[in-house]
């Protein structure tokens, strides 16, 4: 049986027993539970799973994401959110009422525009976005940083602890897209970028929040 936080590769047997259940990124093969991706083992109650080191973004309802408008249709926009499928932002997902007989949709969002949006609904092969959440907006100023989506939970930290210390030290507004994009606006943007690069490099280490706090103190 593999230990908690042990490094595994796809094909590694995590446990050979029917007493355990396969969680995320694992599959059952007869008596064995086997890893699907490379990462660290996580054991919770009777569920054994793998936290991947590298992964494309897998959309989940309720996630905030940064997307790029790639096409305009009669009833909404097609948005690239860096996942296996294109997302759709319907007119009904906008805050304001839009009369399509009188408005040119490209005046609201044009091809190439970046948006910060919420995932409303996910089916097996399609994703629907919404801009109704007060946090959602069109991105016009600031900087956009890309990191591996698998590392986003570390950037947020437990209960948002990591992102809040970065916000405090830099005075920037930070909007995190679960799909691997981080939008930084105002304040000490350079400092935020350096801190996030640090997380990117040392994401798997313990005591990361303290490390970043120390780094921010030294470089503030």
């Amino acid at each position: 049986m593999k230990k908690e936080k042990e490094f595994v590769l796809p094909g590694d047997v995590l446990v050979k027993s029917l007493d355990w259940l396969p969680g995320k990124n694992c599959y059952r093969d007869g008596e064995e539970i086997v890893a699907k991706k490379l990462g660290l083992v996580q054991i919770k109650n009777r569920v054994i799973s793998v936290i991947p080191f590298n992964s494309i973004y897998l959309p989940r309802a309720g996630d905030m994401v940064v997307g790029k408008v790639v096409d305009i249709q009669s009833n909404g926009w097609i948005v690239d959110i860096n996942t296996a499928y294109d997302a759709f932002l319907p007119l009904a997902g906008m805050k304001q009422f839009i009369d399509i007989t009188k408005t040119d949709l490209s005046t609201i969002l044009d091809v190439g525009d970046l948006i910060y949006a919420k995932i409303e609904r996910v089916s097996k092969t399609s994703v629907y976005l919404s801009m109704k959440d007060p946090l959602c907006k069109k991105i016009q100023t600031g900087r956009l940083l890309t990191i591996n989506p698998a590392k986003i939970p570390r950037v947020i930290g437990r209960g948002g602890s990591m992102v809040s210390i970065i916000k405090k030290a830099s005075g920037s507004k930070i909007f995190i897209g679960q799909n691997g994009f981080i939008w930084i606006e105002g304040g000490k943007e350079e400092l935020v970028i350096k801190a996030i690069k640090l997380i990117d490099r040392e994401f798997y280490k313990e005591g990361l929040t303290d490390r970043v706090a120390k780094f921010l103190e030294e470089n503030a």
Partner: protein
Amino acid sequence: MLKRADGRKPEELRPITIRAGVIEQANGSALVQMGKTTAVAAVYGPKSMYPRHLRLPDRAVLETIYAMVPFSTKERVRPGPSRRSIELCKVIRQALEPVIFLEEFPKAQIDVYIDILQADAGTRTAAINAASVALADAGVPMRDLVSAVAVGKIDGEYVLDLTSEEEDLTACDLPVAVIPRKEQVTLMQLDGDVSPEDVKKLVRLALKGCQTIYQKQREALKRRWIDEGAK
């Protein structure tokens, strides 16, 4: 005992180096050197499948694009798909498909680009080794890695991992790809003339060689994510 031109024992592999994560903008990548043969693989996706009419409703499409770069051999290789490279794309795809959970991404596409930078026999096996490390590096859900090696028979002796000099002497050339954990064969081709008993022994030798390569692949991925990550 047979003496090989490079001083190896008959059942010895060429020196192998594997590095994962060599291409920054790819989701996953790997470089594999088996002797002089060098292959680079880069994985992009899963992403939306285009053209649309080729989408599969129940699973993702795995696209393997194998190419030898023009300077990879003594004589210049004409760029672009050839009869040979089209076949290799197909056999490499079929060697990798059984280990990937393609059904997790219906209507999507996974691209694996494999370039052979230097060719000295065994390019398809080097390509498979590189592609499987690159796929694991990209975090594509997989059942296991895939390892591959070619075997042959020279002067009545079974030899592992042929070079192109040896390829001219061998009675047969038998590339094999296996899923190491279960020892399931995903690729087996045979050129030449040998008896069924020989084939059995050759496959057994190839399986042994694949296990060594499998360990190297594992080490490479571990180095990339644990040791190099610590820098």
